[in-house]
């Protein structure tokens, strides 16, 4: 959904986000929704400005979100509050699952297919009966060999018939009945026991949200890393998607789940990724251990035969043509062998350990400050110290760039700067206003910005650095005869350079991403024109159409809708794909193609014109009739296998997946597990304390706390501040923002402060097995003790944005955290760990005599 579409919501649940403080620009649309009569609800461990501006605030303990959301699912199902016409038609609620499926309710907290030694699941028993369902190609698909043993043959089962269904919902293994059993114990009483949210408040919230959903009304969730940074992060978001599927809040005006991104172009860095495990626009990175030896085998294994992703070969081959140009030929598999192949998890957490083990010899760090922002900061610094070289580019000195001089280990006296052998290169970087380029924000909205002023001195844009680095590498390897160097030699790298500084033309990069026909270099206007025969080149198929012809960069467009227009603002910048503002918007019309209501219309079938039309770009084949049905006798593939009433076209069966048969590593349904570190036993599954598939890496310096360890009795969470941007350095070096939040602090409830004799603004020391920090106490009623499973549990919170550089300083909160990972994404847990806190100062003096905090 578009950020501004929040204004069309009738009820907004903000959960896992502090929208007012951390996304203040987007928050205005919540304010607008409220002004129009929407109910705004904030559910969070801390009472913040978002809470203060909400109509209802509900406190919950960090890491108990699935218990709350699971309770909502149960309440909606058991009280028949769901939007039956929507969910029956558009979700897999009536699909029948394999007989061998086993639920955590039967199996002490585990789904069927669990291998306790490997700590992984087989998904065989989660499938639709008689089918093997490919997961949508997406960010993390490549982590499992779903079907590589038979080159995708099993997925062909999806072309033989529709998945078995029982529209009466009576079959014991239909998704509806499975969900009812799965969430049966998530009663309001259980929700209170696990989360501490009073049961009456929980029921009130659920009923308000359900009441504001249906034909005439829609509701939205907003979330940020308060949901993702958990060992169950993906499943928390999944729980919200189940609620939205049941209530009909997907693909409709004011309905959806708004993922609030951390900074302006994080969405863009996922689309055209800086991630290790995918190629641009969500194509899977090949894996050396999968059946990916050739491009044909890779495509045969990974391409779902049904649904939109059946077009994947066109996107892959066009990408290879964009990258390798004339060196990509049919004979050499379009240059597929130039691509590096994965062998394992190369996300930030394992790479931190690989640095410590001296596997990694050098690192470039651009736009990041991991000495502050990465978990287990001291382990990160140890890794830095084992590198041969490190390049940091930023516009001000960062903690990462001077870890060797003022880092934690130096200040603790464990090591002296001259004993650290890492050769450091600190290069000045241009600021946003000093360079051309685009940002892709929360709503997939791509907005161009032009250079405003020249960067001073030797400062250069990141684009300049990467392009010139590439040019030098190509020059270095120009005469090599080694096969391994062919990838660099083959790479097309002919971006035009301008002016004295030889700045690359940023629009040339966007044109390459957009794509062109190889023969004449003409820009491609639509990804449906891409081919798998090498005649088109495209650097990112989802961005195709952003630069449809020479001189026409649609991300420059700045025409907002005026009064009387739809409010979709299709003339404001450009949204991928094809300037479509709401994904799956076919669901905004009923199965017959009519809007569910006049008030909530978005797109509809125009019988006279025989096409879909409306206020948004249809996310559907424009001329596919609502009454189209696949002819199963012909073994339909691609979009032919989806009906005219199957809106979820990226799914193999076109349905919203309430139950996920493939693609998730930790279960087909969200289940409450306690955080990896927790002061309480799991009230729902006493024999299964935490996510059994969570990634844990035991090593010295990264020890974990046992459950209910009396040495670490408090829940610890981290958060951001309005005045401090991300890792903080950009705002800590600016006097006008630094003075607004001059130093680090810890929020602590008056009750806990009294019991520990901690006074407001007094010093405290917070400790874990990973490290300790000292900060002043902010004793505040914004935090309240929780009552969990009959006992009092205290939670404290600390901003993670401080370090030893800049005017505003303070201890690095991430010193306290361990390196762990969600099974699906490897994302770390920053929102719910355990700790201790005491009044006073650290025992060990700072050998540099310059405490991070101002004294």
């Amino acid at each position, binding site marked *: 959904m578009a950020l501004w579409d929040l204004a069309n919501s009738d009820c907004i649940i903000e959960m896992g986000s502090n929208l007012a403080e951390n996304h203040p620009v987007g928050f205005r649309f919540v304010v607008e929704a409220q002004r129009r009569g929407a109910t705004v609800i904030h559910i969070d461990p801390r009472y913040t400005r978002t809470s203060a501006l909400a109509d209802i605030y509900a406190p919950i303990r960090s890491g108990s979100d699935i218990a709350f959301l699971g309770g909502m699912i149960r309440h909606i199902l058991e009280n028949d509050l769901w939007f039956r016409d929507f969910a029956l038609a558009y979700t897999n609620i009536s699909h029948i699952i394999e007989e061998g499926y086993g639920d955590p309710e039967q199996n002490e907290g585990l789904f069927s297919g669990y291998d306790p*030694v*490997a700590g*992984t699941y087989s998904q065989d028993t989660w499938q639709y009966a008689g089918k093997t369902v490919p997961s949508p190609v997406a960010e993390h698909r490549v982590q499992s060999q779903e079907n590589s043993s038979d080159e995708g043959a099993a997925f062909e089962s999806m072309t033989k018939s529709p998945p078995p269904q029982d529209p009466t919902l009576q079959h014991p293994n239909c998704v509806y009945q499975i969900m009812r059993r799965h969430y049966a114990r998530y009663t309001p009483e259980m929700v209170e026991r696990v989360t501490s949210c009073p049961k009456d408040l929980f029921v009130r919230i659920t009923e308000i949200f359900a009441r504001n959903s249906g034909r005439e009304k829609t509701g939205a969730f907003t979330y940020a890393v308060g949901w993702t940074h958990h060992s169950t992060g993906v499943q928390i978001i999944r729980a919200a998607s189940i609620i939205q599927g049941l209530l009909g809040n997907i693909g409709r005006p004011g309905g959806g789940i708004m993922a609030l991104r951390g900074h302006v172009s994080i969405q863009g860095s996922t689309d055209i990724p800086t991630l290790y495990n995918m190629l641009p626009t969500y194509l899977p990175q090949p894996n050396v251990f999968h059946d990916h030896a050739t491009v044909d085998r890779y495509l045969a294994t990974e391409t779902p035969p049904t649904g939109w992703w059946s077009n994947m070969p066109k996107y892959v081959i066009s990408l290879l043509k964009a990258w390798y140009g004339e060196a990509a030929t049919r004979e050499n598999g379009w240059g597929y062998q130039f691509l590096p192949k994965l*062998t394992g*998890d190369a996300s930030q957490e*394992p790479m931190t350990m*690989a640095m410590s083990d*001296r596997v990694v010899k050098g690192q470039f760090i651009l736009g990041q400050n991991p000495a502050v922002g990465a978990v287990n900061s001291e382990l990160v610094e140890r890794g830095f110290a084992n590198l041969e070289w490190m390049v940091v580019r930023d516009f001000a000195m960062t903690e990462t760039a001077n870890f060797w001089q003022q880092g934690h280990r130096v200040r603790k006296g464990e090591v002296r700067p001259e004993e650290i052998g890492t050769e450091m290169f600190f290069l000045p970087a241009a600021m946003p206003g000093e360079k051309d380029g685009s940002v892709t924000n929360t709503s997939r909205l791509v907005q161009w910005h032009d250079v405003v002023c020249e960067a001073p001195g030797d400062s250069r844009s990141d684009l300049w650095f990467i392009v010139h680095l590439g040019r030098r590498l190509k020059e270095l390897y120009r005469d090599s005869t080694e096969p391994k160097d062919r990838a660099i030699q083959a790479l097309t790298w002919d971006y035009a350079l301008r002016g004295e500084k030889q700045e690359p033309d940023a629009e040339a990069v966007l044109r390459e991403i957009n794509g062109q026909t190889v023969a004449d270099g003409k820009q491609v206007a639509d990804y449906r024109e891409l081919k798998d025969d090498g005649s088109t080149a495209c650097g990112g198929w989802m961005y195709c159409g952003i630069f449809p012809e020479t001189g026409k960069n649609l991300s420059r467009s700045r025409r907002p809708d005026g009064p009387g227009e739809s409010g979709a603002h299709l003339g404001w910048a450009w949204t991928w794909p094809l300037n479509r503002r709401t994904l799956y918007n076919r669901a905004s019309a009923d199965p017959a193609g009519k809007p569910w209501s006049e008030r909530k219309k978005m797109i509809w079938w125009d019988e006279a014109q025989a096409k879909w039309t409306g206020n948004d770009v249809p996310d559907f084949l424009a001329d596919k009739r609502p009454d189209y049905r696949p002819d199963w006798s012909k073994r339909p593939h691609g979009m032919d296998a989806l009906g005219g009433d199957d809106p979820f076209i990226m799914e193999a069966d076109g349905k919203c997946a309430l139950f996920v048969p493939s693609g998730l*590593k930790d279960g087909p349904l969200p289940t409450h597990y306690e955080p990896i570190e927790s002061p309480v036993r799991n009230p729902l599954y006493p024999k299964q304390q935490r996510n059994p598939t969570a990634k844990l890496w035991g090593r010295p310096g990264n020890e974990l706390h046992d459950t209910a360890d009396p040495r670490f009795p408090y829940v610890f969470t981290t958060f951001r501040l309005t005045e401090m941007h991300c890792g903080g350095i950009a705002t800590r070096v600016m006097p006008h923002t630094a003075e607004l939040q001059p130093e680090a602090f810890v929020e602590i409830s008056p009750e806990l402060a009294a019991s520990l004799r901690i006074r407001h603004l007094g010093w405290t020391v917070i400790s874990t097995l990973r490290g300790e920090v000292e900060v002043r106490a902010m004793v505040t009623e914004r935090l309240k003790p929780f009552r969990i499973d009959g006992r009092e549990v205290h939670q404290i919170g600390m901003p993670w944005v401080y370090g030893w550089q800049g005017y505003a300083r303070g201890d690095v909160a991430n010193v306290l955290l361990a390196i762990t990972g969600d099974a699906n994404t490897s994302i770390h847990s920053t929102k719910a760990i355990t700790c201790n806190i005491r009044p006073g100062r650290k025992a060990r003096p700072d050998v540099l005599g310059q405490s991070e905090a101002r004294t």
Partner: protein
Amino acid sequence: MSAAPGRESGHRALAALDIVLARKPERDDDRLSEATAELTKFRDAIIAEQRGGGVRSANDRQHLAHLNAVLSVVLGVHFPLGETPWDELQKARDWLSDLVRTS
């Protein structure tokens, strides 16, 4: 050719991998870390020699490429994406054995 630099590290890595393989399917993080550290020393010693002018043939360069491949597989077992590639680790172990024996 003469004994490769860091060969002792190669032997120690081999011993660690044998323990890892004997304990499979249980993942032995400590032994995997040890194998990684020893392989890294082996690799760095070869690199140092090559940078010092010690490369005499394409075969020498091939040693380094093979060692890097072994290291990649060990990391793939230590930090797997989904299923742990045990069969490939066995192959990598045998490759390392050849490297240590022939270098």
